């Protein structure tokens, strides 16, 4: 995705509602079909079985929603005007299944690092609850437990990685943990975790907190709210606000569609983002 001949474009999108049950890989396939329906002039790799030059960022677990997903695609054209790009990406947005909505797009500078290389931290909003529907989880208790996790030296545990059980320390991946408020079935928790060298999954963090009856908490709905690129003490999102606004794409697709955002963005999270 170096954009030597073509033009590399970064697209941001959200994944909300029923489509959260579609895997990351199948979302990628849905985008590739949408590119063809939209007749987007995508560059193809050379070789025996050419494939479109598209790279998707950090995988989102099946079942999770997101307001902050990204992909990079190389177009086999010179750099389009903002208006032309808006038309191209707008037609992709129209061809996507319900729940996948394009929220922005911008031409990448040459030699922009890939999403996989660049993203250092991600934020989630997670509904934490007991596996037992009759057990009511207390926000205060969860808040204290989250602080205890942050205060711990290490959090060794057995975790499933690539189909194998691995013992590792979860603590280095945790950056910020806090309670946002109550949900109908549990407590809404905000998590910020780093992605390298080893990330932490929301469900792994919740499993470390007791539900009051001796069992670990489980996740209800999970929404990824931000991905962060960080360098030299500064941080920014992979497609910054100005890039999206420039293209007038903030609401592409969303206005037409009826997918409910599970929770409106909470004040505290919004405040940090801006």
């Amino acid at each position: 995705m170096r954009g030597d001949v073509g033009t590399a474009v970064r697209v941001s999108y959200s994944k909300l509602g029923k489509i959260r049950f579609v895997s990351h890989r199948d979302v990628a396939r849905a985008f590739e079909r949408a590119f063809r329906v939209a007749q987007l002039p995508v560059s193809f790799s050379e070789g025996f079985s050419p494939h479109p030059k598209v790279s998707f960022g950090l995988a989102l677990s099946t079942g999770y929603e997101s307001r902050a997903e990204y992909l990079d695609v190389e177009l086999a054209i010179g750099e389009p005007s903002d208006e032309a790009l808006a038309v191209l990406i707008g037609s992709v947005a129209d061809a996507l299944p319900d729940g996948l909505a394009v929220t922005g797009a911008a031409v990448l500078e040459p030699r922009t690092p890939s999403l996989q290389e660049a993203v250092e931290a991600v934020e989630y909003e997670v509904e934490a609850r007991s596996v037992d529907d009759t057990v009511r989880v207390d926000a205060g208790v969860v808040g204290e437990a989250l602080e205890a996790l942050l205060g711990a030296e290490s959090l060794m545990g057995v975790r499933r990685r690539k189909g194998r059980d691995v013992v590792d320390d979860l603590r280095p991946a945790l950056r910020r943990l806090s309670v946002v408020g109550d949900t109908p079935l549990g407590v809404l928790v905000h998590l910020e975790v780093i992605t390298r060298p080893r990330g932490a999954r929301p469900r792994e963090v919740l499993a470390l907190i007791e539900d009051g009856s001796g069992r670990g908490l489980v996740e209800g709905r999970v929404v990824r709210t931000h991905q962060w690129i960080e360098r030299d003490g500064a941080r920014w999102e992979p497609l910054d606000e100005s890039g999206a606004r420039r293209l007038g794409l903030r609401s592409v697709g969303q206005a037409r569609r009826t997918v409910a955002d599970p929770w409106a963005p909470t004040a505290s999270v919004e405040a940090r983002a801006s």
Partner: protein
Amino acid sequence: MNESLWPRIEPLLSRVEKPARYIGMERGAQQPVHRPGVVSWLLVYPDAYEVGLPNQGLQILYEILNERDDALAERAYSVWPDLEALMRPRGIPLFSLENHLPAGDFDVLAFNVSAELVCTNLLNTIDLAGAPVRSADRRPEHPVVIAGGHCTFNPEPLADFVDAFVIGDGEEVVSEITEVLGAWKRAGKPTREGLLRELATIEGVYVPSMYEIEYDGPVVASIAPRYPDIPAVVHKRTVADLADWPYPKRQLVPLIEVVHDRLNVEIFRGCTRGCRFCQAGMITRPVRERPADQVRTMVREGLRRTGYDEVALTSLSSADFSGLDGVVADLVNEQEGCGNVALSLPSLRVDAFSVGVASQIQKIRRTGLTFAPEAGTWRMRQVINKLISEEDIFAAADSAYSQGWRRIKLYFLIGLPTEMDVDTLGIAELAKAVVEVGRRHTKQATATVSVGGFVPKAQTPFQWFGQNGVDELQRKVDMLKGALRGSKAQMRWHDPKATFVEGVLSRGDRRVGAVIEHVWRSGGVFQEWSEHFAYDLWMEGLAVSGLDPEWFTTRHRTENEVLPWDHISAGLHRDFLWLDWKAALAEHGLPDCRWTPCYDCGVCTDYALEHVVASAVPPAGGSQGTGQDLSRGGEIPVRFLATKPVSSVPVSASVVSASVVSESSAT
């Protein structure tokens, strides 16, 4: 109509495999609005989503019904056991994918039954919908259970569970059924008996409860309608011209990977190659080609609408489509510009012409190449009337390997009538010879040999044949494995036990219903899946029901025996089928009637139909169906029924039996 079950289903989906099976939302999916007076159909494919979604028959009816003002259709597929285990304790019933409504709220549950072993899933689906599985126990408030698909050409094993079967093409009859159901619904759904009796008078609709079956010991003694207005024989429905039915217009594009995950365009329906083992070919006559221009339009618009990068031109023998090379050339040229769209031709005839077409296709993207010689020796292929010469097979292989394919797939059947070990071993010989041909072009040449046990099917010339038992099939599989050991041909085979159970269901009578129910009640679902297949439950069910599995499977039937499906007709005259069976035993081939004079199988003459074929001459290349080298198979009269003294041929079932016995004892 109840409210959506989605809020109750959603929390369960994080805990199951492939949760996207249950969300719907495919491109092409509709959002029907339920209104009083509109007949609501729930179209069900009783297997996993990824197997059922691509089914074209279901998608065609989905569109036709949703285009009507007085009907709507949603879809459901069998719920995988992991989700079912979460639904049952919570009292969550089967639901539709479009609106996530309870299945029991629909007026109709309509099943596509394309394979025998899905029958326990059909029962499970009815039960999960909250309705009694037996038709006789259902009341007016329960959905009417309808089934169609190839397996309904012997509907009897499912007769106790299904209210009405549709025999043959569904395009027209679903509308007629809708009208009857609509009137019944508007009348406040009075008795089911009255509704079923009315449905039974629709052409192509078979209502099993309207027929009395009498038995004489294990034998079916008679099948008779209960009322004078009920037809003694139910004839299949056939759409005369596919050009009138350009469906699906909006093929569903699933969000997860499914089988046949591509645009599928049906280029013709029906096949008169006359392969005697092939139920699909027998029951879908005559040949009805889609106009080439319509094919081009459906491909072009389908690709544009779906975003698929692969299209399959589907039929029972794609290379037989008139002017196929022209259509393919056009499509290839059209796609070459934007590139990267693959074209595939399932069910290719085995010859160099087919490979020529296939190589044209692989200019854009290479797909697999599969041939189905079906049998290993010429004699065996004459018996089954799949008249492919070795020259054809080697020419096809030579052409394929020389044009860059490194692996070709070969499909074979074992356990065919009159098969001897030399025929079975002929499969290995042929596969090895094919690889040898390939090695002239590439050192990496390999072949994959898929071997299935033959299950005789209703409405075919082999419906009288006693199939091989489990041990015999296993012996043949082992023999083939041995013969292919160390070669470059890899072998795959179908479980002989599954073949045996398929045989019980394929030619069973109404009493087999109790066996299906036993297996289902014992937890046997998803029997098509090897990890779920429960042979012992089937044998237990047969024993509990007092039925002898051999009676339905390995026993040869006699000419005058009442067959359990004698009251269902695909238009093929019984005496035609019997004579063709005898011709098979005499190793006589039969030409393809689309290019040679009619031998009067019964379909066109009885139903006033004609082949719809753009070309009056056989396609270029290949020996099959042209009648040219049939002489190698013995004298084949054009007017087969009228002039051939087939009675001079040893024909009785006992002769076949003897040959099977001698073959077994020879080893």
